């Protein structure tokens, strides 16, 4: 993408659970059309950062700006308006277990559009076939595999053609081939939709395959210690923790 227009700006963000500060002084900008990776070791607060960005948990201090609107300082109506532009794929898929795949994908359409039931059906089967689940409309989430659930979650996240897609550990728990296919799917779909994508992950293969911008959260320093294109970070970063992370710890061995 050539146009470097800021889409999401995180400003001086601190996140905490009660008195325990998880991360402080987070500052970064996600440009329109970016595939932005939030990476870091387990338990560093990647998922919490995503929760703050999508409006599920309020930050201790700081701002999350969508273009010029500060999410946590605006009215509830405006927040709801912003949230309608989000598509979110949760770690577990988070499909509503009492509904079929068709009903899962149809719910956002029924809530926010005036489409007739037959039009909704058409859109739903389009979305399901985009993720390779055509024919599974009548299945319940418990009747399909983990990988299929993730893809169905992706179909639901894209139901309203959102401007911003959030993915929480998209390839966690998938075999390498399914993970790769999901990565490809994410790239293909977001490129054709022109969406901005934020991916929370620690899967190196995914990070290098899909990311064009990123931040690294350091669990010990409790703040972000690097930002930029992950491939560039691998080539240029001087921070030993970032290097260890991006090389799967191999550099640590060499240093010994």
């Amino acid at each position, binding site marked *: 993408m050539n146009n470097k227009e800021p889409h999401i700006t995180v400003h001086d963000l601190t996140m905490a659970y009660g008195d325990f500060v998880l991360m402080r002084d987070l500052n970064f900008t996600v440009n329109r059309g970016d595939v932005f990776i939030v990476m870091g070791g387990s338990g560093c607060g990647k998922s919490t950062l995503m*929760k703050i960005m999508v409006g*599920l948990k309020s930050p201790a201090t700081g701002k999350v700006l969508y273009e010029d609107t500060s999410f946590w300082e605006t009215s509830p109506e405006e927040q709801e308006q912003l*949230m309608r532009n989000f598509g979110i794929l949760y*770690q577990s898929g*988070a499909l509503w*277990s009492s509904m079929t795949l068709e009903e899962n994908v149809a719910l956002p359409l029924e*809530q926010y559009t005036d489409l007739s039931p037959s039009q909704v059906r058409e859109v739903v089967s389009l979305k399901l076939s985009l993720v390779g689940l055509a024919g599974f409309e009548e299945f319940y989430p418990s009747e399909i595999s983990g990988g299929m659930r993730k893809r169905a979650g992706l179909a639901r996240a894209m139901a309203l053609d959102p401007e911003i897609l959030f993915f929480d550990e998209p390839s966690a728990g998938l075999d390498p081939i399914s993970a790769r296919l999901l990565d490809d799917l994410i790239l293909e779909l977001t490129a054709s939709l022109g969406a901005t994508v934020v991916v929370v992950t620690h899967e190196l293969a995914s990070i290098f395959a899909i990311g064009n911008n990123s931040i690294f959260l350091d669990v010990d320093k409790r703040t972000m210690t690097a930002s930029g294109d992950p491939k560039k970070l691998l080539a240029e970063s001087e921070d030993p923790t970032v290097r260890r992370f991006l090389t799967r710890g191999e550099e640590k061995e060499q240093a010994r």
Partner: protein
Amino acid sequence: MDGGMAAAAAPGEISFSRPAEDTLLVRLAGDWTIKEELPSVEEVKKQADSRPPVQRLAFDTQDLGRWDSGLITFLIKVFDQFSQSQIDTNREGLPDGVRRLLDLAAAVPEKKDARKEALREPFLVQVGKASMDIARHMGALVTFLGESTIAFGKFFVGKAKFRRSDLWLTIQQCGVDALPIVTLISFLVGLILAFVGAVQLAMFGAQIYIANLVGIAMAREMGALMTGIIMAGRTGAAFAAQIGTMQVNEEVDALITMGVSPMEFLVLPRMFALIVMMPLLCLYADLVGILGGLVVGAGMFDISFTQYMEQTRASLNLTHFGLGVFKSAVFGVLVAVAGCLRGMECGRSASAVGDAATSAVVTSIVLIVVTDGIFAVVTNIIGI
């Protein structure tokens, strides 16, 4: 690891020698596994304290059989002791695998602030914390009641977002599906009341008044109370577990970020279904209870069917039924609120779902009994 030669298990043994004056050589022999009883660290310590003073510690493991974590924990204890008293320890004599495991265990230093301290707080602090907990819970309860009132408001003007099919399904689960258990319990309660009463009344030849006793008790009290308790255990727990599991699976998060209020989508249909079905179940329970009394009255105490029914009809009026039905509607609200509130408050683990279900049942039953007590006092005062 153990070939034909070492097949016979030899228990772990320890012996000591002094190859040099300041060196203690520890000889480990036999099998050192956690399943066997192993020599204690004290023996090594005793040897080390003996004269002449020991400066170095070495190991000989030529006769060591099988070993596992039992040996490693023993050695860690030994090294801990000796590092305190500044004695050199030489690990050369230990098998390779043992040395690697020891290195691995020491690779990441213990995180000092990570271990949870079991500190005993002063009594006043505990009381303070408990009070603040109660205040927080009350706050959560009031917020929940406020939000559900708003959701009901939206429902009555037709603006609430929920699926009609969910509502019908929940009505079925709270209504028809509960009939067998309500039938069984109410019938037995009617039967028991009749038995207990009949024995006493028979002493005065007043068996016919079994009908009054059973009729009034079922209509005013037991019908509502028993359905309330059945529904607390059956449906309240189910609500808490369903909504709690949805919290664990991030399904509730998915609703919120989709702009759908979980209060309208999950809580409203459940509360509405239970509040509508409880009075109906209560009426049904009243009827079945009276039938239970009839079986005892007609079957064992020579009262005819018509006589019993006529006596029941004469003893009951609409106020009795109205009071019972009104109470059951209130119990319905209590069970639904406790179930849904606990579900929404549920933490993010499997055990939290269990806790939510348990807590929903306990809360509902306590609330039902307390409320019923208040009803008894109030109806007595106003004379109905």
